[in-house]
């Protein structure tokens, strides 16, 4: 036993800690910090899941990795190194996994249920949503985290008790109208999106935009131009893929002529576009040397001249065409770390910027825009991982309720407060409108291969008595088909496993809907099917949530009242702007000054 830990957590708290089993999802920036904390504090068992391998650009913050570890699995290298300093609890068991956490064959519901807490250290929305959903069924505490530059948050969550990850809308990547990208760009980002999503894809990739639904304009002439531009490009693609055309200079010259001269001339012919905008200039090709084969590496942190951009375009396009041809013309995929592709993209975007009188960008900047790179530093990750650790300590060692824990948001470093380094606020209640946690009854059902649909329904009726609706319909969520309702009971004595064809890779779900017309309605029951061989049929909950039309409205009203935190500050105004809650916490400086006095 470590004296310091006992002093702080007491004997009982320390032993609770040394008996706790944690699932850590992700061992990157936040994950390395989290794993170090958990091991130094002597948690009993830590399972680390990460399918990523180590990259050079990780080494500025993911401190468990070294140059020699590049290309190896993060979870494995991280566990190997922390094994070297688990002094507090020599028996801490570390288990590393290199599969995708969303692979249900590998990580089924029984596997998830073994853990006391789940700690997320993820970098993507999809996996966060998945873990959040799993936690709605297993009803285990989830400690969610995220960082971006100086910005970061750590939030504790528990099904039905606190808000879940999906209770607030999350920002999705920005998209641009087709017409802005194809005919009227006005910002550098428009040209980057054009170079990456259109030019690179059409000429060298193999996914093509065929079915554009919304052009973002009603100008028929403009729409016609966008459509024919696409078919005209097809000729270029045929040239690029034809290995008998060995005169590369000619192929490149034709490409440049098409996209930077002819297409621009045709756009200029549409008068309506240039009444309020500055018209583009056609590229002057008089002094261009299409025979150029190599370029010296220029400084990627400096803006290049038009000539330098054109030369880079010529050289990188030649290299990419050769690569495509030598690989049986299989489409290339854009990768921000592929130097030829990056230079092609950057030079194309900058040439287009010159044509439309838009400021050009450095390759360094364009890489960030095109690669969706989020700045990341060691210090923010350390702070956020540690606030998450402290919350898990309070829950496990001090036995605090999850409601008494705080959500922590960076505030000093991001300029939202001059007096508080971190903004720590009470956790929010679940959003009653949330379709993931509030508007359904979520449960896990243990059943075996021979359990019939009738047995399932009878079991639920027996278990929940009056709470269970009289008149129901049952849906197989794997393919959204109705398998039972009041005038369709053909499948009632068939084993469920035969009806729904259990999927080997994902979880199987049933949905039971209340078809009664009474005022009190049972919320839809979503059942995660846990196929077992031995256990009797069972579910992991004792109640069913219901709502009546009136209480439903009242709940909405309560939600829209401003939440007040411990300091008497208003931290969350429900103004239906669809912003994520943690953005709303960030009141500007003026507000903070007024409110904290």
């Amino acid at each position, binding site marked *: 036993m*470590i*004296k*310091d*830990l006992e*002093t*702080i957590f007491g004997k009982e708290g320390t032993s609770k800690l040394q008996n706790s089993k944690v699932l850590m999802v992700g061992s990157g920036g936040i994950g390395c*910090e989290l794993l*170090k*904390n958990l091991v*130094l*504090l002597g948690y009993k068992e830590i399972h680390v899941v990460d399918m990523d391998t180590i990259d*050079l*650009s990780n*080494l*500025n*913050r993911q*401190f468990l990795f070294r140059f020699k570890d590049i290309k190896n699995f993060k979870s494995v290298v991280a566990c190997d190194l*922390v094994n*070297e*300093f*688990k*002094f*507090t609890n020599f028996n801490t068991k570390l288990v590393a996994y290199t599969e995708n956490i969303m692979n249900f064959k590998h990580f089924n519901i029984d596997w998830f249920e073994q853990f006391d807490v789940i700690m997320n250290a993820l970098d993507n929305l999809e996996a966060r949503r998945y873990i959040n959903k799993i936690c709605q069924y297993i009803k285990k505490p989830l400690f969610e985290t995220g960082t971006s*530059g100086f910005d970061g948050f750590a939030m504790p969550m528990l099904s039905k008790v606190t808000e879940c990850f999906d209770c607030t809308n999350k920002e999705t990547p920005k998209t641009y109208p087709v017409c802005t990208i194809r005919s009227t760009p006005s910002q550098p980002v428009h040209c980057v999106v054009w170079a990456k999503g259109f030019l690179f894809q059409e000429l060298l990739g193999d996914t093509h935009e065929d079915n554009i639904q919304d052009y973002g304009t009603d100008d028929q002439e403009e729409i016609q131009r966008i459509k024919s531009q696409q078919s005209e490009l097809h000729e270029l693609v045929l040239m690029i893929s034809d290995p008998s055309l060995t005169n590369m200079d000619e192929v490149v010259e034709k490409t440049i002529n098409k996209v930077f001269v002819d297409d621009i001339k045709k756009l200029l012919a549409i008068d309506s576009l240039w009444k309020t905008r500055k018209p583009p200039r056609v590229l002057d090709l008089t002094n261009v040397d299409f025979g150029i084969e190599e370029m010296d590496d220029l*400084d*990627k*942190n400096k803006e290049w001249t038009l000539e330098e951009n054109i030369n880079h375009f010529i050289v990188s396009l030649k290299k990419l065409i050769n690569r495509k041809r030598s690989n049986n013309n299989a489409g290339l995929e854009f990768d921000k770390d592929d130097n030829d592709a990056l230079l092609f993209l950057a030079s194309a975007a900058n040439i287009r910027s010159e044509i439309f009188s838009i*400021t050009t960008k450095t390759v*360094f900047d364009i890489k*960030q825009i095109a690669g969706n*790179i*989020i*700045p*990341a*530093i*060691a*210090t*923010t990750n*350390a*702070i956020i*991982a*540690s*606030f998450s*650790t*402290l919350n898990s*300590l309070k829950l496990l060692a001090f036995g605090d309720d999850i409601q008494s824990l*705080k959500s*922590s948001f960076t505030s*000093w*470093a991001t300029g939202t407060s*001059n*007096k*508080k*380094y*971190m903004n*720590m606020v009470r956790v929010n209640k679940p959003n009653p409108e949330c379709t993931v946690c509030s508007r359904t009854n979520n449960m896990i059902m243990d059943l075996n291969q021979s359990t019939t649909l009738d047995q399932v329904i009878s079991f639920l009726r027996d278990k929940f008595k009056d709470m269970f609706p009289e008149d129901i319909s049952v849906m197989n969520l794997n393919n959204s088909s109705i398998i039972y309702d009041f005038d369709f009971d053909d499948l009632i004595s068939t084993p469920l496993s035969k009806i729904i064809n259990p999927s080997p890779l994902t979880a199987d779900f049933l949905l039971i809907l209340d078809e009664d017309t009474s005022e009190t309605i049972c919320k839809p029951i979503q059942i995660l099917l846990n196929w077992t061989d031995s256990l009797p049929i069972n579910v992991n909950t004792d109640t069913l949530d219901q709502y009546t039309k009136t209480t439903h409205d009242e709940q909405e009203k309560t939600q829209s009242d401003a939440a007040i935190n*411990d300091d*008497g500050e208003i931290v969350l105004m429900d103004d239906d702007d669809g912003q994520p809650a943690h953005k709303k916490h960030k009141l500007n400086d003026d507000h903070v000054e007024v409110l*904290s*006095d």
Partner: protein
Amino acid sequence: MSSEDKVDVELYDRQIRLWGMSTQKLILKSNVLVVNINGVGTEIMKNLLLSGIGNITVLDEHDIDIDDVNTYYNQFFIYKSNIENLTGKVKRLDIAQTNMKDMNPRCNLTSITSDTKKLLLDKSFLNKFDLVIITEILDNEFLCKVNDVSRELNLPMYITQSYGLSSMIFVDYISRISLSEKFLDIKNDAVQIEREKEMIAKGKFPVKLTKNTELVSKELVNNEEDGNMKLVMRTLNKFISFREMIEKLNTEECISNQFNNRQLRNLKSNTTIPYVLNSLNPKIFSTDEHFNKCKGIELPAVAAIVGAALVQDFISSLNKTKLINNLLLFDAKNDEMPIIEI
């Protein structure tokens, strides 16, 4: 571009995108002294090494006892494989320095394992550094003397002390100008832009912003291309010495004047942050047995937060943004992390 520079940009890509190439170059040129590598010192070393700092000197004369895990349980630069053939007492830094070097082989790392107290009062020794970070020293009278010397040398200094779930960072940059830039949208912020223009025209500077901060200049920079304007404010920040801070905290009215009502309420009713102040100011808050037991404990996670906040503040000092002025308190038990201007 030499090949060595190229690797640098790739390696530090994610942070250069945040603070720019010029700050990254200043990080590389910095020469920092870190005193003691217990829990917080270890975290500080990790963050400095990761950031790409050029020169670090570590001063630590503490021993660990291989046979007593309590003396090194919170270390992650000491590996089992380093100590499995050793017994008894060894210098903590002797073991850790190899693994520190391994984290960033390009950093010039110097280790000194004796004479901590003597060196910290030695002007010719301190003069070499751009920054001094002191951890794990709880003797406030001694710290006052060191701070007197560092002020004489115009040498920025951080002092951090830990008390289990509570912790504090004292920041002393003596006197410095910081820049703050705010982007204003010409369309949306027209009213504010007009108001700022008027104020700048009157030119009544310097203006006191807070007790220790004065506004030196204020200007609007036009950037028509992006449709926005930049409001640039230069402020002069005066930091108070460690000795002054303790003296001020020793007066009752300082507590009521310096903190707003809410903070004061928390300081008096909650339990942990007062403990931190208690060590600086024994007259006002009565001592507590549990607190005394926690004195000096550098708990993992708490140490990580303090170590990260400190290094982040130092990096901010390189690119002229605002700094903590001049006391950061952290109370993990009661979820408080205020910045207090004494």
